[in-house]
């Protein structure tokens, strides 16, 4: 780099440029003065090479250079295009190939961590569960920090890790990464802009990081207002969204005037139109409709119907209540939940619920209200088309393009996590049945009502699902290990931990308590003291899932049936076949309902109801999903015969 020569200063002045001190400007050897026009320079300025052209996608090629801009203490990389800066670019390091056009202020106003380490009151508006958000905060790290408050040392150590990382971010200059584009935006103060990020038409961004990479570009769009925020790789925040003290996770989409305060949205979540306040939205949490409020709740693999609402206080000591919807839940239109409540995995909530209940032992349930009374129908939701479709769509809709993903996700609907719940549920339902007076319509469990007459049926359904699950895992194991004797394949996996373990869902990552406790003690002891190590250890847990799952199935099959798997394979396969066929029939039956009776209301507005319906919705027999289910059902027999032959 060199200082400007007298000739170059003169040429710049002729290009209507002004500097408080020309000697503070550094330039490359092949500096082109004609690429700088109508600029005001203050403080130390470094300008890179200004060669070539850029195209921002509108078909107009722009010559790299600096035009109509005011710059204060700015370093500019090679081949950037900066034009029409109405305010100032101040205290900034701009990397190579950056495009900035038609903006107001882009400034660093003092020392900042760009939103990293900012404590937000997630899950409990009143505080007590603060999470220090950073670009490295994963769903798992957030879960441990927010929900394990009884482990003071753990929380302190996790906060230290966040602080250490945030301190490494601390600067008094902003950074704009390689190939980033900032267009038509009004104000960016104390914002870190990652590589290849695109900011188009943002209104006001303050104290935040937009993490981004070439492979997972992050987008900020029109009218966005964001303060004290973190946006992780591959996410987008657009269309007038407002984000305050919030984290937007990898591959998440926020837009269409969604507003969020003190909330987190992990991998592939979606927030449109509606509102989130102190919401802990784990992976795949989706709220698309106006009038929907997610407040003080823990959600994951969740779908909010329009007008969904929850209450987190009862006008007493303030907003101290919180709610938990375990993975895979849905809330129907205008459903309401009174916090505190806990809803079991993969359940559907319909109607308004004014009772505080805990259904976490009863997964796959319908929760409905009947004349103000909350009623649960356990296991029913497993047989719906929706649950089957959900289980398949989540992995298929993973938008994260970055190789190293922050949130570690086990997608399985049937897993040791739901398996252990079903085993428990079978016992609970039997006990309730045995102790219930045959004259009563309902029995009560953890604050919710169950129809007595359905207890046996619900129990039977859980048994059916378990038979399918045990068989699925056995078949996976047998198919994976083509060679080898059955007795070799079907023994305890030495890579896995004991099958007697309890399983937990740490916000997308299913794991044994043993592995989690080991991780926690390593964090508490200081052995794990940065995000990199922590992520590595979480990845080890993630990679151990299959071995741990197998050991759980081996152990729990024995516990549940009283027989060792290895000596009971024919019976297990028989039960699997019967359960699978039955389940597919029930799901197909559910799918069929989408094509008959009342579903045709409103079709054929002036006649030809059936023809109109079929033109829009198609026919049951030719429906893609139905065909897939039928194909799978036919494969049950095939697989069964194949495996039986191997025995």
């Amino acid at each position, binding site marked *: 780099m060199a200082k400007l020569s007298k000739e170059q200063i003169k040429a710049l002045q002729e290009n209507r440029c002004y500097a408080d001190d020309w000697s503070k400007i550094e330039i490359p050897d092949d500096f082109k003065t004609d690429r700088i026009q109508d600029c005001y320079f203050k403080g130390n300025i470094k300008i890179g090479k200004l060669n070539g052209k850029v195209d921002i996608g509108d078909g107009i090629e722009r010559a790299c250079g600096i035009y109509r801009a005011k710059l204060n203490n700015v370093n500019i990389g090679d081949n950037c295009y900066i034009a029409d800066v109405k305010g100032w670019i101040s205290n900034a390091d701009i990397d190579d190939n950056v495009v900035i056009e038609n903006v107001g202020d882009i400034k660093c106003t003092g020392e900042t961590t760009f939103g990293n380490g900012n404590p937000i009151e997630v899950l409990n508006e009143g505080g007590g569960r603060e999470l220090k958000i950073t670009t490295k905060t994963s769903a798992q790290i957030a879960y441990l920090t927010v929900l394990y408050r009884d482990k003071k040392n753990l929380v302190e150590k996790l906060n230290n890790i966040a602080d250490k990382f945030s301190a490494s971010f601390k600067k008094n200059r902003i950074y704009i990464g390689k190939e980033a584009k900032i267009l038509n935006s009004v104000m960016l103060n104390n914002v870190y802009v990652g590589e290849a990020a695109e900011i188009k038409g943002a209104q006001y961004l303050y104290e935040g990081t937009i993490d981004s990479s070439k492979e997972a570009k992050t987008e900020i769009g029109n009218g966005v207002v964001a303060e004290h925020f973190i946006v992780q790789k591959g996410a987008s925040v657009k269309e007038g969204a407002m984000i305050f003290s919030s984290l937007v996770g990898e591959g998440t989409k926020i837009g269409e005037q969604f507003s969020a305060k003190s909330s987190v949205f992990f991998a592939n979540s979606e927030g449109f139109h509606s509102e989130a306040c102190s919401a802990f939205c784990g992976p795949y949490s989706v709220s698309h409709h106006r009038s929907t409020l997610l407040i003080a709740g823990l959600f994951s693999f969740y779908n909010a119907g329009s007008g969904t609402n929850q209450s987190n206080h009862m006008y007493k000591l303030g907003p101290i209540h919180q709610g938990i919807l375990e993975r895979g839940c849905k809330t129907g239109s205008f459903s309401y939940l009174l916090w505190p409540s806990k809803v079991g995995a993969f359940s559907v909530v319909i109607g308004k619920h004014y009772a505080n209940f805990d259904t976490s032992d009863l997964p796959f349930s*319908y929760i*409905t209200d009947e004349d103000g009374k909350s009623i649960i*129908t356990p296991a*029913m939701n497993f047989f719906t088309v929706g649950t089957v479709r959900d289980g398949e769509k989540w992995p298929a809709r993973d938008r994260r393009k970055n190789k190293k993903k922050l949130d570690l996700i086990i997608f399985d609907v049937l897993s040791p996590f739901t398996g252990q719940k079903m085993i428990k549920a079978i016992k609970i339902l039997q006990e309730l049945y045995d102790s219930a007076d045959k004259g009563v319509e309902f029995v009560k469990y953890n604050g919710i009502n169950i*129809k007595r*007459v*359905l207890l*046996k*049926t619900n129990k*039977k359904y859980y048994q059916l699902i378990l038979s399918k699950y045990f068989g699925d895992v056995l078949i996976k194991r047998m198919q994976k290990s083509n060679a080898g004797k059955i007795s070799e394949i079907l023994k305890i996996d030495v890579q896995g931990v004991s099958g007697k373990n309890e399983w937990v869902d740490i916000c997308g990552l299913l794991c044994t308590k043993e592995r989690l406790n080991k991780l926690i003690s390593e964090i508490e002891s200081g052995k794990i003291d940065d995000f990199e190590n922590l992520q590595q250890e979480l990845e080890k847990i993630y990679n151990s899932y299959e071995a741990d799952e197998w050991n759980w199935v081996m152990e729990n099959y024995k516990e549940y049936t009283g027989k060792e798997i290895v000596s009971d394979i024919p019976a297990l396969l028989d039960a699997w076949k019967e359960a699978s066929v*039955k389940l597919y*029939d*029930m799901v197909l*039956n*559910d799918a069929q*309902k989408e094509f008959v*009776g009342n579903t045709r209301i409103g079709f054929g507005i002036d006649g030809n109801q059936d023809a109109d319906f079929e033109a829009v919705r198609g026919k049951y027999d030719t429906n893609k999903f139905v065909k897939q289910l039928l194909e799978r059902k036919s494969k049950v027999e095939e697989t069964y015969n194949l495996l039986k032959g191997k025995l």
Partner: protein
Amino acid sequence: MSDTFERVKKVTAELLKVDESKITESSRFVEDLGAESVQSIELVATFEEEFGIEMDENEALAVKTVGDAVKFIDNILSKK
């Protein structure tokens, strides 16, 4: 009218909250009597309890009319 029909009618009327006199053998549980999916399961469970029988879920749910339900139940009872 068979005893089974009378008992099926009574159970159905109570559960679906419909007028017992309106229920005929040709009444369809879903289309005519408004049975929703959970109610259909509940009907099967209540019939099981009422008649002291076990019904195959899928076969039972395939039954569309009250008359067919009566036949289905009578068939199981005859095998007891």
